[in-house]
């Protein structure tokens, strides 16, 4: 059994016990525990089930590489699935539950998959669910959906808050072990702005557990002094619980700080995402121990040798009473010594190497422990917990020599440097034959903006696995400032790579050798993939799902690609690794979202009249970042009814539209006219001061991009109105041409959209309302159609444009934004006797469609030129050039076969669905029905009391009166007649009064 030892534990504080529950069972740990050490201390080795076979799973590791021990943590608004117990600090009252089992962890129905493992080989998804085709939808998918997925999705809204923070440094050192600390000391002394970040809650890394001495002191003591020294340096920032998640272009580093995971609900943000810019990055990320591939290496109780050592030394937890060590290197003997030191039994060390004569093995032998060299594990005994190990010769096929009773196995297949950050931005790896590992190739680092190396790997992350080498390497890399720390650790004899144990294991054993514990990928699966032709490691990964679990193959990848290389009869470097991608370990979605949720998800733009709309029933429509009233709902009224009421009110009396969102750009200067002539399809330089003109803008590719009314304010000043969504884009477009093409033209532009509140007063009584306000002559003779006047209206400084998008007598009045709300109120008061009705965007849209006016984004979609919309009248024939002119001369653009704008009137008066297509006879080359047109705008017109639509139809204007078929859902066909797009007041008698 695993248990808490009566003394020791360098990280726990026995005076501070903490209670928690696992699957409802009450347990106890201490401050300083991880969930993993607390669970093991309470003899809870079995913590979950694997993904595919639902095999019992125990804790394997002690850090970020843990593949098995994932739990659901917390409750309600603080529940989160897939929390790795090895990296979760224990807190008082923690509620945890195991995952991926039904009905219970101990008895799981899904485990039947395990008995059927022969039917679930690699790629079984692709092989099994193919036929019959209908079976996928009706049989397989429902079953797969039910059993797929790891953990439960939270259902309550997240109670915590998250934040972004920004950091800048000359040097960011990732990893607070002895290498990281050494580098920070040197760089700190040099005066660099240094950040040292460490993913766990403790400085010092593995050195204190491994019995390293530095400068004549135990590692713990040296680490304490080093941290104290660094804390005194003003140019050095230290952060614990901060994991470097990814490294990106030009030294952009994302770091994930778990601020309050261990103190939930204390008011601090739970996570903080640091967006850092590093002049240089040093990865002191250490190394991860590799498992050995022997049959039954996934039985709970089989753990990494380093993890066993960690649990004993750091948390005074013994994973077992009798622990057998299985290894191919000297380092694992440290685990034997640690266990013996704690008074625990080590029945044997099984060493795959032919001999083991280093200092560490000799020290173990001297304690009377059997060391079986040249041996291996044939198989592990036990199901939910190790009960023994069957020993064989490593060179053989697995014939059992003896069985050793034990309740834990500590395995070590050697170490792999953590090269993720090094690799994220293009750093390359080299194969180190001596240690059978990939390490960073210093000649091929990721490079930064200046073309120089952006990353340096130091310490064991650089392949310097021995403490003395690691510290020396770090000191030198960081500029060798000050005295180099001297580390001393035991000598180690060479390791010997072991990828399968025993060497000659047959199929039965290989089917029980786990590579990826979480996703249930075994040696046999990778070998099968190789036999089936998967030669690329990237393909094999996806076919077998090796390394695709939440641990991203931290334990399995190197073993997996070694097995693949062997199956392909090629050297490991020829196979290569899969791509290392951020994040290093999963980060919370909350941290990625930061503060951007709820009301501040994105900035909202509000007009000066926004609050009035809000309290008067505005049914909001998002238009870019603006919110505009779609219509105003009265009590008990539906949207459709409200829109129709608003339109009738305008057509019969008068309405008000908040048009403040309309883009307004000032274009000014001696060359402004010339510039606008290039920008618009029609002539703007000839526009008289005091007049307005409707204009079109096209892209260089000829397509219609924006439209609006232009007013000439003075000899050298024009005001260009754009669509609501187009203001920023068009302003940028103007600047692009002015700065990059015609930079010698004397023009400047200013986007004054938000400087003005603008109101459209439309309807037969519009003039009467303005006259009631008084102050300006708005009579037909004094203020003609398409003219603007400036003056004081009802006491407000106003610029009045007589333009109409509704087809009614209409004025658009701009006042300073600060006076917008007061002006709106004044208009409402003045209009009261006429029943003035505020209207929204939908009424505006319908009224413009009744008049046959186009709408950017409805009639245009980036493939429509003005000529398609019969807007030739707005295209100058005199100008030699404008943006888009050359493009519109291309053969396809002048083709008579282009679809052109027409009106559409359904024969039965109904409304055609938006986007419906008109079909023609025959089929095209793909066997699809030929098309001859489509609907671009479609509405119910309350004015005409029937459905009206606009659309683009092949040869449309020449086919007036013809009836087209528009097939819609359920085989129904709507018949519509081609008509003039101007449905209402063709002669403009309403607006010219």
């Amino acid at each position, binding site marked *: 059994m695993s248990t808490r030892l009566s003394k020791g534990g360098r990280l726990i504080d026995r005076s501070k016990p903490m209670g928690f529950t696992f699957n409802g069972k009450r347990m106890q740990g201490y401050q300083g525990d991880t969930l993993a050490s607390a669970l093991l201390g309470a003899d809870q080795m079995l913590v979950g089930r694997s993904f595919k076979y639902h095999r019992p799973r125990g804790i394997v590791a002690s850090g970020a590489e843990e593949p098995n021990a994932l739990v659901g943590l917390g409750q309600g608004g603080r529940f989160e699935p897939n929390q790795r117990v090895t990296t979760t600090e224990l807190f008082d009252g923690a509620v945890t539950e195991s995952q991926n089992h039904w009905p219970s962890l101990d008895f799981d129905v899904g485990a039947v998959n395990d008995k059927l493992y022969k039917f679930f080989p690699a790629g079984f998804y692709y092989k099994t669910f193919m036929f019959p085709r209908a079976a996928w939808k009706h049989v397989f998918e429902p079953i797969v959906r039910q059993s797929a997925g790891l953990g439960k999705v939270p259902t309550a809204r997240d109670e915590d808050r998250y934040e972004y923070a920004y950091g800048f440094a000359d040097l960011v050192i990732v990893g607070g072990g002895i290498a990281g600390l050494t580098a920070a000391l040197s760089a700190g002394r040099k005066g660099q702005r240094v950040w040292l970040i460490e993913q766990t809650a403790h400085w010092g890394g593995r050195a204190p557990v491994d019995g390293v001495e530095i400068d004549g002191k135990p590692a713990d003591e040296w680490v304490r002094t080093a941290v104290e020294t660094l804390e005194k340096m003003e140019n050095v920032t230290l952060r614990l619980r901060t994991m470097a998640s990814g490294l*990106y*272009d*030009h*030294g*952009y580093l994302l770091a994930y700080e778990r601020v309050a995971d261990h103190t939930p609900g204390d008011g601090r943000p739970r996570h903080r995402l640091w967006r850092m*810019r590093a002049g240089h990055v040093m990865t002191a990320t250490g190394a991860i121990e590799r498992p050995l591939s022997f049959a039954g290496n996934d039985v709970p109780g089989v753990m990494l040798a380093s993890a066993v050592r960690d649990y004993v030394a750091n948390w005074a937890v013994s994973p077992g009473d009798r622990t057998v060590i299985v290894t191919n290197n000297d380092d694992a003997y440290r685990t034997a010594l640690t266990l013996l030191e704690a008074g625990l039994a080590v029945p044997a060390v099984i060493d795959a190497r032919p001999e083991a004569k280093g200092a560490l093995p000799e020290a173990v032998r001297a304690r009377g422990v059997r060391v079986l060299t040249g041996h291996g594990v044939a198989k592990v005994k036990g199901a939910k917990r190790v009960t023994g190990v069957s020993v064989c010769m490593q060179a053989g096929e697995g014939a059992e020599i003896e069985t050793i009773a034990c309740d834990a196995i500590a395995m070590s297949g050697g170490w792999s440097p953590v090269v993720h950050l090094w690799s994220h931005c*293009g750093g390359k790896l080299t194969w180190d034959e001596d240690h059978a590992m990939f390490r960073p190739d210093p000649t091929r680092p990721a*490079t*930064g*903006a*200046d*073309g120089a190396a952006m990353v340096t790997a130091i310490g064991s992350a650089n392949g310097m696995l021995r403490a003395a080498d690691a510290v020396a390497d770090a000191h030198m890399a960081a500029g060798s400032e000050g005295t180099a720390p001297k580390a001393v650790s035991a000598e180690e004899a060479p390791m010997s790579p072991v990828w399968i144990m025993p060497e000659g294991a047959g199929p039965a054993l290989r089917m029980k050798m786990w590579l990826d514990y979480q996703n249930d990928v075994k040696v046999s699966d990778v070998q099968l993939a190789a036999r089936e032709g998967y030669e690329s490691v990237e393909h094999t990964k996806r076919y077998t799902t090796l390394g695709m679990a939440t641990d991203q193959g931290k334990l399995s990848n190197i073993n997996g690609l070694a097995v693949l290389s062997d199956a392909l009869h090629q050297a490991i470097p020829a196979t290569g690794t899969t791509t290392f991608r951020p994040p290093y370990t999963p980060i919370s979605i909350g941290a990625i979202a930061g503060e951007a949720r709820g009301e501040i998800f994105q900035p909202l733009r509000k007009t000066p009249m926004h609050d009035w709309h809000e309290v008067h029933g505005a049914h909001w429509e998002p238009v870019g970042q603006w919110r505009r009233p779609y219509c105003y709902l009265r009590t008990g009224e539906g949207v459709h009814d409200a829109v129709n009421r608003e339109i009738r009110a305008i057509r019969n009396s008068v309405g008000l539209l908040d048009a403040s969102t309309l883009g307004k750009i000032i274009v000014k200067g001696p060359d402004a006219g010339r510039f606008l002539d290039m920008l618009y399809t029609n002539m703007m330089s000839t526009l008289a001061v005091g007049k307005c003109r409707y204009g079109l803008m096209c892209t*260089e*590719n000829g397509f219609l991009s924006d439209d609006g009314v232009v007013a000439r304010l003075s000899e050298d000043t024009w005001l260009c109105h754009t669509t609501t969504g187009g203001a920023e884009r068009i302003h*940028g477009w103007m*600047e*692009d041409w002015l*700065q*990059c*093409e015609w*930079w010698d033209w004397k023009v400047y532009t200013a986007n004054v959209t938000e400087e003005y509140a603008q109101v459209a007063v439309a309807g037969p009584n519009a003039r009467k309302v303005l006259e009631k306000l008084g102050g300006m002559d708005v009579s037909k003779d004094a203020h003609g159609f398409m003219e603007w006047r400036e003056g004081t209206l009802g006491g407000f400084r106003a610029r009045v444009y007589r333009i109409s998008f509704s087809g009614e007598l209409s004025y658009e009045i701009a006042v300073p934004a600060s006076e917008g709300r007061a002006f709106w109120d004044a208009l409402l008061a003045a209009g009261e006797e006429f029943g003035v009705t505020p209207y929204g965007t939908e009424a505006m849209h319908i009224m413009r469609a009744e008049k046959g006016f186009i709408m950017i984004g409805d009639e245009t979609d980036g493939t429509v030129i003005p000529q398609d919309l019969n807007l030739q009248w707005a295209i100058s024939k005199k100008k*030699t*050039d404008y943006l888009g*002119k*050359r*493009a519109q*001369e*291309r053969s396809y653009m002048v083709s008579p076969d282009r679809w052109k704008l027409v009106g559409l009137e359904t024969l039965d008066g109904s409304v055609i669905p938006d986007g419906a297509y008109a079909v023609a006879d025959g089929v095209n080359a793909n066997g699809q029905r030929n098309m001859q047109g489509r609907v671009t705008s479609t509405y119910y017109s309350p004015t005409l009391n029937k459905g009206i639509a606009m659309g683009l139809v092949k040869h449309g204007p020449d086919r007036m009166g013809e009836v087209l078929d528009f097939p819609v859902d359920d085989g129904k066909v709507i018949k519509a007649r081609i008509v003039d797009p101007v449905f209402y007041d063709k002669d403009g008698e309403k607006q010219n009064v």
Partner: protein
Amino acid sequence: MLTLECPYCGVKAEETELQPGGEAHLKRYGPGSTDEEFDGYMFSRKNPKGVHFERWRHAYGCGKWFLAARCTATLEVFGTYPAQTSEPPAELQAKIKAKRPNWEGYK
């Protein structure tokens, strides 16, 4: 995420502050040009693996367009300069040539 120094305001701008504008030093072909010329101006881009001249706007800064010379493979930035020029500054060209001897020039 790239950082580029805006040659107008001197700010080392992060990519999120910038708006990309595609290849720099294009010659505009308007009415009167042949189909081939217009097609080349409108659609044909170099897309090299290596030295590339491109347009960027310091959109969330000073609002100015500027040009940058950058290696598309390594993301090394050779320099940035104002957009009001028809060819890259001579010293920048010399700098690139020194770093990339096989570079064939910006044209």
